[in-house]
């Protein structure tokens, strides 16, 4: 009997010891991804996702504030002169799991939210899933001129005109999480219209209500609902809005200060433009497109932006299937003018 109790004790001791010696593994299971903002619950561990090359900044009013990095050996803390401020440098696309030692809320932001902003957009560009091809052939008609159909109705069901993947959806502000969830469906072979295409999520937060014609997306059951939603993607403003959310910027492009303005032939104050600024393209004074400046070059043609390409391919001097792409600003020649604005940093 004594031997039995001793064995039980030893087994329990071993389990207990192993349990507390691997706190990070339990923390990983329970913790959530954290976006820039205020973290009130400082009693548990957090995953901070470093998708950017810019450092993570943590601040707290507690003068004794410190952290333990539980996971990610490649990240390390950089000491700062400011009290109660911790800076973490991590490799891109590596989660940092950490635990706070603080008695008040911790504020999390990126050292340079604008760099994080454009690097998050780069993640969309680098999605390795195929983008859905949009049909665009000779019987294209304007959606404005009498709302005529652009394509014959039977064309919506022709599988040979469709490349399966994630389509560009007008107003479809899908997250990367939902993209991941739907990947296997996107890669499935065509067997008629699957039931899940009928699922509609209406997103009211669309920047400009054009292209709502039937057939703009081949999966629309009716006019005005160009948002197949079960197949996913981002539109131009949707991309930037989501990138703002993860980088800690406000999507306040209407009120944001204008840094530069002009067109492909010349832009006033062009030297002030920097990566992370937002390109607002206009035609006849109407906002028609958005992009984020990804590289600032010596001139407009050598300056690049990342954007979700909502227009069809001929417009670009290219016959490539478009999705979220990085292109030179000089591809927006002809009739476009632009403002370049700088969004505000989210107040945390």
């Amino acid at each position, binding site marked *: 009997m004594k031997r039995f109790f001793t064995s039980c004790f030893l087994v329990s001791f071993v389990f207990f010891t192993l349990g507390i010696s691997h706190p990070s593994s339990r923390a990983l299971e329970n913790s959530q*991804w954290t976006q820039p903002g205020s973290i009130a619950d400082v009693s548990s561990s957090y995953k901070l996702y470093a998708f950017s*090359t810019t450092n993570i900044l943590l601040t707290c009013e507690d003068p004794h504030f410190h952290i333990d990095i539980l996971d990610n050996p490649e990240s390390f803390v950089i000491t700062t002169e400011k009290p109660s401020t911790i800076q973490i440098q991590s490799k*891109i*696309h590596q989660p940092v799991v950490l635990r706070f030692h603080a008695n008040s809320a911790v504020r999390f932001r990126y050292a340079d939210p604008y760099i994080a902003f454009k690097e998050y957009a780069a*993640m969309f560009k*680098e*999605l*390795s899933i195929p983008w859905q091809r949009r049909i*665009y*052939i*000779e019987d294209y*008609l*304007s*959606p*404005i*001129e009498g709302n005529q159909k652009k394509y014959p109705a039977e064309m919506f069901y022709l599988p*040979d*005109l469709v490349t399966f993947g994630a389509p560009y959806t007008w107003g479809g502000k899908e997250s*990367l999480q939902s*993209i*991941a969830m739907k*990947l296997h469906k996107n890669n499935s072979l065509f067997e008629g219209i699957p039931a899940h295409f009928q699922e509609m999520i209406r997103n009211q937060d669309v920047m*400009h209500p054009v292209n709502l014609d039937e057939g703009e997306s081949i999966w629309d059951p009716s006019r005005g609902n160009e948002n197949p939603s079960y197949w996913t993607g981002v539109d131009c403003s949707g991309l930037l809005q989501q990138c703002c959310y993860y980088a800690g910027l406000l999507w306040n492009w209407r009120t944001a200060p204008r840094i530069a303005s*002009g067109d*492909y*032939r*010349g*832009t006033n104050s*062009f030297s002030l433009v920097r990566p992370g600024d937002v390109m607002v393209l206009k*035609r*006849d004074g*109407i906002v*028609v497109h958005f992009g984020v400046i990804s590289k*600032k*070059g*010596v*001139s*407009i*043609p*050598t*300056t*690049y932006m990342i954007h979700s390409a*909502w227009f*069809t*391919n*001929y*417009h*670009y*001097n*290219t*016959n*490539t*299937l478009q999705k979220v*792409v990085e292109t*030179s600003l*000089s*591809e927006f*020649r*002809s*009739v476009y003018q632009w403002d370049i604005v700088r969004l505000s940093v989210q107040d945390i």
Partner: protein
Amino acid sequence: MRLSPNTSPDPKKKSYFKELLLIFFLGCVFFAYSSMPISTHISKSIPQKIPEATPPKIQPPVCIEMIGNVPLRDQIQTIDCSQQGPSFTLLWGEGTDGIGLKGYDPSACNGISSGALPAHIQAMEDGTMWIADGYGPRLVQVSSTGEIIDEILLPELRRPDISQIPALVGFTFQITEDQILYVMDTAKKRILYYGMEGDFRGSFDIGYIFYNPERLLQVEPFFSVLPGPIFRIQIHMKADEDRLLSDIEEFPIKDVAATSAQGFYDVPLQPSNHIGMYVNKVARIISIFDPSQEEAFCSYGSEVKFSLPPAHFSSEKYSFQLQQIHYKTENHTFTTKITLLEPQWKGGGFLGGDKNGAIYYWVDSQTIGIIDPLHQQTPEIKVHYIKIPKGFLHPVAVLPGGGVVGMRTKKETIEVYRFIAET
């Protein structure tokens, strides 16, 4: 027991021994080769492959460097064309024997909704010009008075599933002095060659630059053809760690094993690097550059590069650096570099060069600057401006004899403007 004097080794054993020796030797070669670092293989092999497209004997390049200032606007001779009307008008739109498909739709919010706006033009020495007509797609030759006199169909640019019917397709092209038409096919990532009769002569598959063509993700439409031919292209390629490197000189020595990475929520990513390169027709890399730091064009035997001023100049004072490389003969070049202060410049790019070597650039939305050939310059830069009418002008090309041709698209017509400026 006495051994026989002719006890020679068994022939079978002898050949077995030879095989063993051969296997041992091959094994040694294998281990020696595989233990060599990858970078050693490549760095040694690449320079040996390059000379195929470079001149056999390269003399030391002649290079002149100077600093120059463009005067203020009121001191510059300006050709005022702001009130000039169109030289001629082209028809375009549905039902016409003109350019494009439907015509321009100014009420469409999404840019040009229904027609193939001409995206690219090139003016020829005989006074004609070639227009990239996205509907077809095709190239259309227009006389100096506006008649359509020839066309080259480009069905190779269409999608395979609709290859039999005309389609709207964007593309860029360049016609070289030896009368070869080069067309960029960004979808299939290749450059197509045609004779000026429209005869398809072949293509250069850009993916073959890499050991694994799948590494090439995207090709940008803008390219130029240098004598050789050598292509100046810009691409996006799969990369892993090296996308974070600022020194792109490590390409292509650094190989990439990983072709995908995990992003937020484990979304699969294809990390990419944006890079520019000079390659010849057999996919050998001549040199590389950073596309965000350098712009260039090539015409009439000279290449002009446009880049940031050297680091020791104040970027606030000096606007940009121009470099003009003259390919005089096969084995002789000379280069002139000018670091330039252009106080009126608003960041616009190049338009091109004329046959006299003058360089055309956008000063602002209504002004085109013309800089005389760089080797004829003094620190007080010889430059003059053309003031063009207000409104959009696209596409635009340089006239070989000096000046600019541009298009203004209206609902059913395309107005063609010629601004002559002899250089």
